[in-house]
């Protein structure tokens, strides 16, 4: 029997059957892995509406979007002025690393503001290092904040976890462990002060 068997045909059949089995097993894994991704209702809750007029001048509020915290800050002209003059301290002064989300409205002038309306700044409140929520320390210098911030602090956010620093447009400052500026998310104004985030 054995010597009559065509071994190469037999091997082909083994490999074909085994290969098919592996493909089937792989296909069977799809629904299981797939089930672990965000469910439809989680995705559906992906938009948030907010009225920026509720934020007082110079104040910061934290709202929720997709279960993530989001910063909305109202920047006075003084605070906006604090955005100038420290581009050389920034890792990515023009926010070029992750363009897509803001591509629609980002123009040469509002690159430093990183927002549609300069006075209302909106960004995801998770430090791009490991996701802690940075603390808002808007005034410049060390007067109010002590040694947690550098001498030439331009005002912005300080992450308590590993010390990342961001300026008032949440652009990350050199020497921080965080790799990127705080992420922006897609949003648009539906009226003068109403924004839809997501």
């Amino acid at each position, binding site marked *: 029997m054995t010597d009559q068997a065509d071994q190469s045909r037999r091997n082909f059949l083994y490999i074909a059957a085994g290969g098919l089995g592996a493909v089937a097993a792989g296909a069977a894994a799809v629904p299981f*892995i797939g089930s*672990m*991704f*965000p*469910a439809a209702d*989680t995705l559906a809750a*992906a938009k948030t509406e907010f009225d920026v007029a509720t934020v007082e001048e110079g104040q910061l509020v*934290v709202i*929720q979007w*997709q*279960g*993530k*915290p989001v910063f909305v800050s109202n920047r006075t002209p003084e605070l906006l002025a604090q955005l100038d003059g420290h581009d050389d301290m920034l890792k990515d002064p023009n926010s070029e690393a992750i363009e897509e989300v803001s591509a629609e409205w980002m123009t040469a002038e509002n690159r430093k503001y990183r927002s549609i309306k300069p006075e209302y700044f909106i960004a995801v409140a*998770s430090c791009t*290092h*490991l*996701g*802690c*929520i940075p603390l808002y320390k808007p005034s410049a210098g060390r007067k109010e904040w002590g040694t947690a911030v550098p001498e030439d602090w331009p005002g912005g956010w300080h992450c*308590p*976890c*590993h*010390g990342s620093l961001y300026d008032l447009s949440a652009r990350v400052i050199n*020497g921080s*462990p*965080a*790799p990127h500026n705080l992420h922006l998310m897609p949003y648009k104004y539906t009226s003068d002060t109403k924004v839809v985030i997501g």
Partner: protein
Amino acid sequence: MLDTIMQTKLFAWVDRRTGAADIIKSQLTEYPVPKNLNYMWNFGSLALLVLVLQIVTGIFLAMYYKPSAALTYGGYTVAFDSVERIMRDVNFGWLIRYMHAVGASAFFVVVYMHIGRGLYYGSYKEPRELLWIIGVVILLIMQGSAFFGYLLPWGQMSFWGATVITELFGALPIIGEYLQQLLRGGFAVGDPTLNRFFSLHYLFPLLLAAIVGGHVHALHVVHSNNPEGIDVHSDDQKINFHPYYTIKDAFGVGVFLTIYCYVVFFNPQMAGYFIEVDNYVPANNLQTPAHIAPVWYLTPWYTILRSFESKLLGVIAMGGSLAILFVLPFLDRSKVRSGRYRPMFRLMVVMFFVDVIVLGYCGHSAPSETLKLVGQIATAYYFAFFLLLPFLPMVEKTKPEPEGI
């Protein structure tokens, strides 16, 4: 005792259908073990004991624990409240929960001692490479399981710890973002995360039990190393596992349980080391605690992560520091096993133990400039230890090993 049981009719009936007598003989009563094992060899059986304790207490806790982040009338969450209910209302709930929480730390104490013993006496070397590698898999599953479990009380440290660690996976190129969503089941840590972590926290110990079976089986094929690190051949240098080492292990269990019970009853939180203080504050996704640190047994790796400016490098280094354990048997080229006969290795390995403790300390403390530097040096030594091993035999003059034990 065992003999009398084995002579009964009932046992004979079972034996004919299972071969139980042969198993008992080959694995216990006639399983040969070097006669000179010291107390460092107790930690394997202790680890098995703690695993059983964790599984048993965990099963009972799961009868009352509810993995849901839904808000309750009190303004907390279902999960947080169910843990507090276990502590206050469930009969003996406080005891079972403290046993489980202290057990987690005890598990790592015991396993780290077990690993340290393997390192010092060269137990990972030929022919025990695979035994060691299976052990590293066990360590990884334990760490995963502990991480999943830590989310369940849904306190501040649970929540932010899970956020930070799942965020790590996001640092990986291309797959990072998907992997992160897969772990979280959403865009941030939330209810879906809690549910799946509970499921995985229940699954991992089962995996653990199976793999521990493989570990013990592999051990019984290659047999125990010993403090001298030499192969023992002649029968007069070995004794049977039962009753000699069962008794010795039982003594170890007695000592262990004394300490364990002391901690469970008198100091279950261990000054914030076993249960962190921040975890008594319910999870709040809008506020980060001032200082986030993992539980003590994960802090050495957390320091390695923090030692790098670049997030991706940090993640790679942390992964690498665990992965390098897999190749340890192949990095160490010396034929001599035991640290007793390797003066330079002995110094290096003792420094390595100190180094890991330093790493752990740095990871547990709030970050500061000095600690960062200390952490970086310690991280450098962690890797240097492994990477120097292949070259060590070129310069090291080993001492002569004894003929027998």
